[in-house]
């Protein structure tokens, strides 16, 4: 699971062009969309949907579901683990 989380952080940085950051800058429980977290926006949320589909084969049809799933690296990893197979 922790390997998945590290991989996720690298993928997030690359998919969202967060060039200023390294995986160490993203805490597992950091709220990704909060202003005092990573400050991501609605377009980034859509890129997450693309990331999940192309890297993990998981589809999210309704973007509003996304907020919960993408809340933090923890919740993302949980979602992937639960739905992967």
């Amino acid at each position, binding site marked *: 699971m922790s390997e998945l989380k590290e991989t996720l952080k690298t993928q997030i940085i690359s998919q*969202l*062009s*967060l*060039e*200023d*950051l390294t995986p160490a800058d993203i805490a597992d429980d950091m709220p990704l969309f909060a202003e005092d977290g990573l*400050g991501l926006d609605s*377009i*980034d949320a*859509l*890129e997450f949907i*693309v990331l999940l*589909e*192309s890297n993990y084969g998981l589809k999210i049809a309704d973007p509003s579901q996304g907020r919960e799933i993408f809340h933090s690296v923890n919740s993302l990893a949980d979602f992937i683990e639960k739905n992967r197979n």
Partner: protein
Amino acid sequence: MNGEKIVQFTDENWLKACYQHLALDYPKFYKMDNLSKMAVLGVELLANSGIFSQIDTNDLELLFANSNASQHTDLKFIDSYTVAKNPSPSLFVYTLPNILTGELAIKHKWYGENSFYISPNFDAQLFATKIHQAYKKGVNYCLCGWIDSKLEANSTLSEESFLFLVALNEENASLHQEIEQLMTQYNQKEKE
């Protein structure tokens, strides 16, 4: 800046290098396309001169233009859905050249009028005309820019940006003189 070279970067990552040199601290920068990046950096150079604190930015109009809209990003977006098979929303956002004026407005909280024109080359006449129209409307400042990113025949990217802030008042030179001035400044830049 005003005809003087401030700093020069020669490699492909010149935009990132410039951003770091200016110590901008604006993470949204990285997600932008080259047009928006050039605009933001150019405006930052202007801002560093202190000019924006001397004017009422509620009275600022943005006038921008280029020759090929968002061609480079358009092609990258096509790649994302044909090659990668996943259309990228963050690329699509930048397939409109006027997003760069949007980015400037968002960063600096400028609510004034903004427009984006397409012309084959830097057209001083177009800018001078628009600036005079703005003045007639009662606007006092125009931030203008030619921000161009063009795919050349040999597949290299040719990028340039030329920004100028104009304060409008009765004493401004005639339209004709302004056009000449603008062309001279633009051509000077080209020679560097």
